[in-house]
């Protein structure tokens, strides 16, 4: 009881300075200097979002701008406008992309209001959401899952590992129609990309 009354009298103190959370977002060079990027995300002064894993090794030289990382939707399918079924396949992740992908079903983000649903078999799926680097045993499974999907279908590459291999290995050998960079991408950017892929507003 004492700590309760004490807290009411004094007020709860957590941090003196409330930091502005800006990670992860687009980076830009803010200082001069040499940067050693573990994934070669910095090529000729251009920051490549498809390779950056936000490890902050470049921190004082590159700093976040606050703008969210944009996904590239190379092909969108209008027939999915009202109903879009995803089959997620994890071919070799650290688990981070899985957690963030799960969150689009949470009440805060609520994918179903956009007509996006999950299915547990590729035979009923409209889009294959590929996460993670390529591991040997999953090559066959990825191929079978892709073959089992009926036309029209989209392939969504989620996370830097699926796009360019990240820091873990080689990316899966599949051409992606929707590329969502980030390590891991935020649920908001995932949802934005999915809505664009199904030709929604």
């Amino acid at each position, binding site marked *: 009881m004492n700590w309760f009354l004490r807290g009411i009298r004094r007020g709860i103190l957590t941090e003196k300075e409330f930091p502005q959370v800006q990670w992860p977002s687009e980076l830009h060079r803010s200082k001069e200097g040499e940067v050693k990027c573990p994934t070669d995300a910095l090529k000729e002064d251009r920051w490549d979002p498809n390779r950056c894993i936000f490890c902050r090794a470049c921190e004082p030289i590159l700093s976040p701008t606050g703008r969210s990382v944009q996904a590239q939707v190379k092909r969108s399918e209008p027939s999915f406008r009202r109903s879009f079924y995803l089959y997620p396949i994890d071919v070799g992740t650290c688990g981070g992309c899985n957690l963030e992908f799960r969150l689009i079903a949470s009440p805060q983000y609520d994918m179903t209001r956009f007509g996006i649903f999950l299915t*547990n*078999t*590729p*035979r009923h799926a409209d889009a294959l959401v590929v996460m993670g680097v390529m591991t040997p*045993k*999953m090559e*066959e*499974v990825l191929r*079978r*899952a892709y073959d*089992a999907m009926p036309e029209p279908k989209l392939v969504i590459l989620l996370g830097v590992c699926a796009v360019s291999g990240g820091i873990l290995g080689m990316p899966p050998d599949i051409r992606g129609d929707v590329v969502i960079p980030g390590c891991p991408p935020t649920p908001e950017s995932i949802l934005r990309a999915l809505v664009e892929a199904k030709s929604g507003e």
Partner: protein
Amino acid sequence: MVSDMYLQIDKFYLEIVTLLTMITALALSLWSARASHVVAAISSSLFILYGLYSGEFRVFYVVSGLVWLFSSTFSALHDRERWYSLTFSGTLLGIMITLLSQNYLEFLTGWELMTLFAYASIGVYRREWRPGYTFLAFGEVSTVLLIAGFILAYQETGTFLFHTLTDTLPLWFTTFGFTVKMGIFPFLVVEWLPIAHGNAKPSLSSVLSASMTLAGVYGIYKMMSLCPQTQALGGVLILIGAFSVLFGALYSYVSDHMKGMLAFSTIENNGAILTALGSLELSADPVLKAFAQFSLMVYVVAHSLAKTGLFLVAGYVHGESMSTLSTQRSFSLEIGTTLLTASMSGLLPTVGGVAVWSLLETLFMESISVGGILGLIPLLAGVMVGMGEGFATGAMARFTSFTSLVRPRGGERGRLVLLIGVLMPVLALLSYLLSPEMAGAASLGMFSNSLIPSGYSGGSFGGISPLYVLIILPILSLITYLASGRRRVRTVDPWDNGSGRRLTYTSFGMANNIRLMLRFVLRTRKGAVETSADVFWRAILQLVRGYVRFSRAFSRAYMNSSISWYMIYMILAFIVVILVVFL
């Protein structure tokens, strides 16, 4: 007639020789199991020979002999243990004495002998006491009822020999005694028969299911022939039998224990046989009675032989749960099992199909000819039997798929099973000889004497022609094959999420539709493990608990550990029983 006298003497000698051979088999088992089984097979063949000359009960003897012949041949080929041959030949001896008995005492001797030897066999096989004791307990319940009935019969005739009676009370007692042995409702729900029969060696299981229950049917048939006709008993038997058909078939379909499935199928078929017996008792029309007799005999033949074959199939399989058993498919086993299960499902052109058809025809004809409120009984029974046969078809399809059709090919075994399987359509053709009439229907292309008609005094009802079906079936199949050409099949692998486990349709999964649809009847009880607790089992459990509570309360209130009050209770009970018997 002199020739008749010679036939009598020959029969007598044949009977003695058969009995002695079986006793030899029993004695030989102390020395060599294989020799014992071979001698038992010889004795069974002699018994078949004896049965062919036996007149009224010919079918029972011949069928029992065939069942024993197949079972002992199987045991001779596969079993080497001497305790098993001892108990096996002892059981056969007991049933033989029962079937050959000339008076009540011999009947009871044979009955008890078979129960005791079978109990020993079940007990030693698993080294667990529970299945054996369950079997013995219900066997003794049936014996008590039999003794009561036989005492009443003795009281009336003054002799132990089988004489015609005028009182129907012995019939009631003995019939209920025999139905308990057949595993029929109400004791069906405690599932004593599947527990007992599922825990014995396959050849003994086939003898228990096919032959021991046949002894029960033989007993009821014999007592019916001695006592006057009671329509009330007929109605009761029809209803009990039909209910057992439905629920035996249901439990068989949802069961995943291979031998348990077959044991429930035995209960179902015994229910059908009981319905046939009840129909025999219910109708007074001689034409209908003859047809009911035909349906009874054909059903007895169909069930005993097919069940023997199926239990022998179980002997070729390793493992007990249908979902985890391992076996190899061979051509003989495949064809044999398919024919046997087709017979058990009641499909033409096997003898089982003729049996089910004739039973249903009997019931429908009775509901028309008996009429009135009593005519509702066969109608209701026909509905239940039909539903039960549907479940039986599903259960048998499941059985044959998962013991042979989906298994990998290997080996060439089971020729005995093929032999019994081939008997199924052959006996269907022979059933023309058993049927009361034969006819032809030229307008339908069935030449003379190829139709088994069903009729009652009010006219003819219908007909069936196994020969016709046996001929038409391959012709139609050939036409379909030629018209559609070779199979063009695209196999698609099921999506298994990359696990690599070839997901297959399990036997348990095949029965899930009924488990879900009838979940209000087939409930479960949550304990450490979720177990089945259907409504009938719960009802009997309530009765048992209620009785135990009453008994405890009564004894505590009345006797309260006092020996003198207990003795007074015993004397009073004794006096009451004597008074009831005298009145």
